[in-house]
């Protein structure tokens, strides 16, 4: 009921506004339309120009208010090139923006209708039109050249020595698979997926899977200054691996393998110093709408030194060991530092290191 009343009330307010406005129309007619129209024209021209001035001030205010909320310096080598290209594009478009908007608002104000003015009959001028077709074309060609140079680099094949990590999206979290000691990700098959004990559908007949480690908490550990090649997939719908701090992004598409590679250049610890934020963390955001939990599909990236990475990896158990522990009761699953008893061939890579 109160909702209905609110609507009625709002409706009434608008009716009153209309009546007031209508009254001003009658008074215009009474006081001489021609004169009033001239005055309205002058004030609207002035207001329009003031809008421009206020807008330009607003742009500066907005920039000052938000510039310290932007992303910190790029944490990848691709990102550095992205930042410089963004700056170039900002400068080019910024110049065009200021010139065209200034002309627009200034012409409008300057050539407002007066009693004396007549317009200038100026239907076309081929020279002018040639100039402003060519200049944008050249500017665009330059931006395309910069863009394609960076694009070819970003999408080129990853260096031979890069580490390989698989990132798989599912509603609504990220699963990260490390290839383990052999450096090879084993085969997986969506038909073998079982949420209880085979979350990625690893094919156990493939020996390469035995040492693969899966981080179900979405923690992506990377080594600083070491290129990483991400193998990206999805279990259900389309997701997107968004790495804002590295200026990278790639969709995770079911049925298709996508990839991206980059070299992280700043460790998480260093970035905490740079930003002065002790809670700073690199985040993986899902950037492709994937359902009701889309906004909570968060992963993290931890960039660390080789030593830290090795130490962390040493503590991880392979996914096979974690889920097939009952089959080899002698292997103490909980204590990864104890040397496992190697009984069978298939269990020889039960744990890492």
């Amino acid at each position, binding site marked *: 009921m109160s909702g209905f009343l609110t609507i009625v009330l709002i409706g009434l307010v608008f009716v009153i*506004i*209309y009546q007031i406005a209508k009254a001003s129309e009658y008074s215009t007619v009474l006081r001489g339309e021609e004169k009033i129209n001239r005055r309205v024209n002058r004030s609207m021209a002035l*207001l329009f120009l003031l809008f421009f001035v206020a807008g330009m001030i*607003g742009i500066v205010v*907005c920039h000052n208010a*938000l510039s310290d*909320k*932007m*992303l910190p310096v790029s944490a990848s080598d691709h*990102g550095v090139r*992205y930042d410089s290209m*963004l700056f170039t594009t900002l400068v080019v*478009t910024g110049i*065009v*923006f200021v010139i065209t*908007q200034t002309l*627009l608002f200034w*012409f409008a104000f300057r*050539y407002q209708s007066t009693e004396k003015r*007549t*317009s*200038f*009959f*100026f*239907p*076309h*001028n081929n020279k002018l039109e040639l100039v*402003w077709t060519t200049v944008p074309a050249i500017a*665009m060609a330059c931006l*395309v050249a*910069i*863009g*394609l*140079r960076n*694009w*070819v680099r*970003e*999408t080129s094949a990853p260096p031979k020595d890069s580490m390989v990590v698989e990132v798989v999206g599912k*509603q609504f979290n990220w699963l990260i698979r490390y290839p383990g000691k052999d450096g090879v990700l084993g085969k997986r098959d969506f*038909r073998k997926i079982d949420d209880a004990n085979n979350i990625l*559908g690893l094919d156990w007949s493939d020996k390469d899977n035995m040492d693969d480690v899966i981080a179900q908490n979405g923690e992506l550990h990377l080594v600083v200054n070491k290129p990483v090649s991400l193998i990206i997939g999805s*279990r259900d*719908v389309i997701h997107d691996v*968004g790495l*804002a*701090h590295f*200026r990278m*992004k*790639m*969709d995770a*598409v*079911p*049925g298709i393998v*996508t990839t991206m590679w980059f070299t992280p250049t700043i460790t998480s610890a260093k970035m905490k110093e740079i930003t002065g934020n002790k809670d*700073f963390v690199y985040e993986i955001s899902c950037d492709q*709408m994937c359902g*009701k939990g*889309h*906004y*909570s599909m968060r992963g993290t990236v931890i960039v660390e030194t080789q030593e830290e990475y090795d130490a962390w990896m040493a503590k991880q158990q392979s996914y096979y060991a974690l889920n097939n522990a009952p089959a080899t009761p002698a292997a103490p699953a909980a204590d990864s530092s104890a040397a496992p008893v190697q009984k069978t061939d298939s269990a020889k890579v039960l744990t890492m290191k």
Partner: protein
Amino acid sequence: MSNSVIIEGPNVAHGIDTGDHHHGHEHHEQHFITKYIFSQDHKVIGKQFLITGIVWAVIGALMSVFFRLQLGFPNETFPIMEKFLGEWAKGGKLSPEFYYALVTMHGTILVFFVLTAGLSGTFANLLIPLQIGARDMASPFMNMLSYWFFFLSSVIMFISLFVQTGPASGGWTTYPPLSALKEASLGSGVGMDLWLISMALFVVSSLLGGLNYISTILNMRTKGMTMTRMPLTIWALLFTAVLGVLSFPVLLSGFVLLIFDRNMGTSFYLSEIFIGGKALPHVGGSPILYQHLFWFLGHPEVYIIMLPGMGMASEVLSNHSRKPIFGYMAMIISLIGITLLAFLVWAHHMFVTGMSPFLGSVFVLLTLLIAVPSAVKVFNWLTTIWRGNIRFTVPMMFALGFVSLFISGGLTGIFLGNSALDIHLHDTYFVIAHFHIVMGVSAFFGMFAGIYHWFPKMFGRFMNNTLGYIHFFLTFAGAYLIFWPMHYEGIAGMPRRYYDYSAWESFKHFDNLNAFISIAAIMVFFAQLIFVVNFFASIFRGRKVTVKNPWGSPTLEWTTEINPGHGNWEGDIPEVHRWPYDYKDDGNGNDFIPQTVPLRPGEEAH
């Protein structure tokens, strides 16, 4: 509107369908139903499209108010939302499912129902016959069908808002597998089927309309109305229709395959999916295929939305500057350029889908090429107002605002069309800011300019000026306040379509800004209600138009009676002798020469 319908004489016969002609030899009052509801008069159909569009715009904008409340104030509750949305906003807090449904519906409604049907449906219907000098469309009956298919599609979409599992909620692009699998989201249930049916009917409506517009423009111009004597509105509407006719069928094919995947067990878009605790049998499909089919319409759709605004802004800028449009031929050539390129740039929406990077490079090149004709148009508009005699009427201000917004929104397209930048900006608030400014607000400004300018032709009355000025400044300022800061959020990597950012270390510090944007959005919403009140009140109470040609325009629509009946001109259709932008001294103290006036001795045709 009291005129009885006068349909007779040899000039009329080809213009109307035989059913009407049958009664043509007697003057008669039409029944209310055939005059206002199942009308075949293009002017009435135009008004039907416009009013349906306005209703949808209010609904779509209200949805954005609801989800902006959630985004701006994620920790508050708004009991009033429960009044509107019931279970979906229990305790005044929007549920995530319904948040996504609102976002999806807001996009679908505004892009298709308001800015496609409501915009080109209105002005193509109203202006094409009037400005080219025709009694009606090539097929008035098909024209009527076009509206009623749109109406049917609207009804189905509206019903989908009330189904138990909610309306479609996979984004207005409805990418499968999310939209294809009922297990993936509540909105992918019945709501999605209704969405697809509604959109399929919408495509039918759009095709019936578009074919009619094209054939009318090509075949039914009055004597002397050569192609290069047509106003730029008509050129723009012609290319709008061409874009729609060539790209909507592709969208329909994409939807049909999606319907098959959803209901008949095919695997066009589905492959290797494990969902709801089981592996699905689908293998071999590709979700990327859908994206290609969708964006093959989706991108031309942007120009379907932009071109009518461009045409109307050209017309209004020239008319209220009392000066010919600068570079008439260049304007037409740039429209042709935009139309051709519009078909060749769709994959710039898909740079990060895993599409071949080489293909990506090709689309970068083609996409940035489209900036050239767009730039030409902007420079020509600027030169049009240069040394004009500018009347700051409400339509003129909206047309000037259109140019300002088109520049702002167009320039950010240069960022997104360059794949090496898109790799970071894709699906962030930068994209939201870009397309809302350029094809949202800017297109709306073109539409408002058109409505305020042609309202006297539609209803024989003026809209209220005071309210018009208030509406303009609130909307213009509000649009920049909402969308300008969003560019910053986007460059900071903030992803779009999030229900709540408070758990994210990287994005949670924008909470104050989000609240600010929400307040601005609510303000703009109420400013639009001023327009709605002004529109409907002025139909009945606006100041009456007393002269045939209140704006002093050379084009043909102002040679008709103040309230033209079906058939538009009493007596013969006027003959055209000159181009539509002859704003020069006619020797009698007027600053324009109507198209119907023959060239004076010694006067050169443009």
